């Protein structure tokens, strides 16, 4: 792909740029599968913990709540600070971080599961006994880390709308990203029966390892594109059609007249 930048200047081949973006969408959804498949398990995990009279799925609201708090902090404090240190948080770097944070979230769940099994009267069959004396708020860490990984990975897939993909393929790139969600949840459904006592520590542990390996592989495979980030961003908008760049309504009307 070393010759990609040269090809960007050519309209038809900007399809190449679109496919490159789409290629990185698949790893993003793998990252999502890893976190989504665990989301339901965390609700069941809460059922084996001390709930203090609150429904056991109330903590899932912690995810959007954490997002609402973290996004402004990242935007106003963390990113500017990084940029001041001349570290540009490019999409590919953020996706990689997203993988490792997802891995950390799973390790958190894994440790909690270890203590649930350790303290439960039924040992590795904790679901058959009374809840253990650990507050379900101990799960907060997992939810917050998942939210953080979502900022890193999911927002990046939105940013691809701003890619140099040709204007008449922008919506398509977004719809493919959405369709990947369908595939993620399908795989999530398929894996759900495997997540049950007495394997739950393994369940979280394996996902943590997969996410860490995934992050490493992702960075190795796409590192070279990260170095070209500026170069690719500076190129003119891909024109897989006529004047593809955004034109104000008035201008469009005028050009229509001139063509007629």
């Amino acid at each position, binding site marked *: 792909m070393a010759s990609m930048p040269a090809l960007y200047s050519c309209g038809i081949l900007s399809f190449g740029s679109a496919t490159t973006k789409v290629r990185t969408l698949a790893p993003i959804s793998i990252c999502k599968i890893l976190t989504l498949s665990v989301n339901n398990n965390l609700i069941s995990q809460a059922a084996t913990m001390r709930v203090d009279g609150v429904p056991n799925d109330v903590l899932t609201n912690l995810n959007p709540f954490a997002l609402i708090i973290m996004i402004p902090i990242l935007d106003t404090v963390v990113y500017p600070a990084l940029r001041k240190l001349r570290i540009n948080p490019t999409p590919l770097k953020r996706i990689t971080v997203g993988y490792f944070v997802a891995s950390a979230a799973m390790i958190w769940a894994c440790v909690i599961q270890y203590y649930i099994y350790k303290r439960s009267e039924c040992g590795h069959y904790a679901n058959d006994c009374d809840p253990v004396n650990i507050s379900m708020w101990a799960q907060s860490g997992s939810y917050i880390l998942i939210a953080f990984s979502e900022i890193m990975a999911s927002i990046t897939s939105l940013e691809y709308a701003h890619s140099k993909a040709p204007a008449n393929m922008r919506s398509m790139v977004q719809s493919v990203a959405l369709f990947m969600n369908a595939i993620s949840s399908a795989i999530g459904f398929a894996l759900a029966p495997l997540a049950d006592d007495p394997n739950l520590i393994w369940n979280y542990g394996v996902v943590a390892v997969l996410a860490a390996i995934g992050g490493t592989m992702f960075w190795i495979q796409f590192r070279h594109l990260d170095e070209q980030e500026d170069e690719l961003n500076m190129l003119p908008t891909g024109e*897989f059609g006529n004047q593809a760049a955004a034109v104000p309504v008035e201008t469009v009307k005028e050009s229509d007249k001139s063509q007629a």
Partner: protein
Amino acid sequence: MASEPTKVATGDDVQTISKEKDAGLAHVPSRPEDDKLGITPDGGEPTEEEMQTLRRVPDKIPLNIYTIAFIELCERFSYYGTTAVFTNFIQQPLPPNSSTGASGDINHGQAGALGLGQRTAFSLTTFNSFWQYTMPLFGAYVADSILGRYRTICTALLVDIIGHVLFIICGLPPVIKNPNGSLAAFCLGVILVGVGTGGFKPNVNPLIVEQLDLEKMVVRTLPTGERVIVDPATTASRVYHYFYLFINIGALLGQLAMVYCEHYVGFWLSFTLPTILLCLCPLVMLWGRRRYRRVPPQPSTLGKSFKLFWLANKGRWSLNPVKTWKQLHDGTFWENVKPSKFDDATRPKWMDFNDACELYQKKKKKRSGYQC
């Protein structure tokens, strides 16, 4: 991390750049000593060295973008608010002495309406989520190639509202009494809302980014005297971070509040409030009718793209995966299918453009110019 994060944050806003941008290079007095040192004047494209050394900052975010983010907030509120009560609505029976489905106690009661059991509830909610994720493929095609994003979104919102009105009808006390009729309206509602979301979701993100003014990196001097690069990619990144924030505000409010409505008032309210918020969306779109920048649709080039992709893949696959990998990644994947690599005899018929995407034979112009 930097030692003074708050200071960093305040220095980050470039309030005037997009206004002055149009003035362009011509109005910027370029001092002769700057030229000697290779310093780009304000509004100019940064040099290689400046890209390495200057700090990146986002451009100012125009009002249009906030309004589109608000539309997305309302749409997500309506979607998550409604789906949050789906399972109870289908699965659980009407609570005793209730005609609305309300249980009266969120912690111990069980709200319900149709009482069709877990299997029906699971099938319907699963169908709903897959439908929501597949329809965008259709909505994106319509927007890219036929209607354009603005008109697709408007049409989709209307379909979406009709779907939500059907949900309200399902939840009305006289209708709940008749589970079969209610279920029929409910299924139709799910289908319409899916079509609406499909036309809405994939098109809002591109519409938002098309409202940004800046297209290339430019150098700018802040009031503090620091020279920075105003970067479109950084701007888009900031926009999408807050866009995601709005999505989550909508989702959180929707799913929290509608569960309370379901338990204390009844399903009709859990379906009505989302519909009211959704009805705000067309009003905002109307406001933006002349204000939003629109990209005209262009006849789809998808077919040609895939033909090209197919051609590029040809002869690169082998039973040996290592060999396949090497042949796919030898750096000539797109290079070899450039039109200039073919002569008149070998060029496929559909390849009617050259490397710069101009047509070979300029026949009469099609409606919106030709594609390549």
